[in-house]
């Protein structure tokens, strides 16, 4: 069989990935389910959060990084839960120490705890500080094309607009804005947040996104492992459809079979 599909790798800050699906590690039942779902998703880039160590806990208790090892995956520390540029920068520096100098981070600075909408003012300030400090910054942002452009100008290595609110599963609410962001960007654009099911991941890729980042859609599915597999295929299908180029939309029907040679002609 001829291999018709030879995609270029996803390139982020000099790193290359065959998979265009990036996944989070939150909200799973336990570490076993986390590890199995991530394996089923085929993801190579995996996000995690940085939190205070529970003091007094069993020191031999399993650690997330035992299941999602830095040897097997590209770990992407996320500043989730930070509401100021200062806290986000501190969190990234702690993560870099935690991962022995690994400098790729997901910057996310939130505006309030009901919408979890990005605070773009704080995000811009944090991005500038982190880039000056040598970080490669993948940045979570709103679907505002002007903000996306400014984050790229500051030197962010990937721009990641929300499809809809974090954890909402409302899919991509403004595909036109996502397309505007993609059209102007020279760095990878990934939809991050809002994806609820496979068709929405495929839509992100059909719009021309370079990748999709998700957590809840897999972790909160009734069967996370099956959804992880569905998402893997959806992202690939959407990518192939984007590269193939969709047919034009028409106002009227057009038969697929020739009109000539019909038996009653």
């Amino acid at each position: 069989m001829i291999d018709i599909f030879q995609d270029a790798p996803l390139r982020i800050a000099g790193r290359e990935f065959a998979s265009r699906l990036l996944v989070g590690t939150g909200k799973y039942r336990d570490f076993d389910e986390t590890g199995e779902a991530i394996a089923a998703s085929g993801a190579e880039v995996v996000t995690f959060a940085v939190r205070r160590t529970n003091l007094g806990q069993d020191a031999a208790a399993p650690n997330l990084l035992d299941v999602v090892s830095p040897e097997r995956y590209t770990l992407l520390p996320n500043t989730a839960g930070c509401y100021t540029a200062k806290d986000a920068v501190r969190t990234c520096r702690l993560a870099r120490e935690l991962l022995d100098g690994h400098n790729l981070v997901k910057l996310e600075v939130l505006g309030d705890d009901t919408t979890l909408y990005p605070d773009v003012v704080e995000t811009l300030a944090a991005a500038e500080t982190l880039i000056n400090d040598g970080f490669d910054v993948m940045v979570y942002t709103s679907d505002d094309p002007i903000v996306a452009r400014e984050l790229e100008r500051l030197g962010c290595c990937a721009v990641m607009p929300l499809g809809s609110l974090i954890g909402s599963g409302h899919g991509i609410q403004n595909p036109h804005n996502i397309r505007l962001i993609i059209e102007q960007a020279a760095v990878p654009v990934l939809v991050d947040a809002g994806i609820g099911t496979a068709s929405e991941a495929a839509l992100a890729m059909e719009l021309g996104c370079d990748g999709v980042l998700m957590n809840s859609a897999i972790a909160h599915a009734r069967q996370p492992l099956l959804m992880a597999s569905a998402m893997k295929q959806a992202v690939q299908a959407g990518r192939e459809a984007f590269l193939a180029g969709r047919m034009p939309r028409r106002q009227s029907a057009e038969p697929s079979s020739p009109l000539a040679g019909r038996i009653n002609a």
Partner: protein
Amino acid sequence: MQIQLNGEARTLEADASVARLVEALGLTGRRIAVEVNEEIVPKSVHAETRLAEGDRVEIVHAIGGG
């Protein structure tokens, strides 16, 4: 002496090093990161970094997240 460890007061022997604190917590060799007064203390200098009265120490690790 008393320090603030992950937001809570904790009593420590005078002049204890970061390495000593980490050891006392049973976290030696674990994947953690340490910050003292909002500055990272790299693993390579845990042994030689002395804590002082009133220091604010954060010890963090990786957990599941998006």
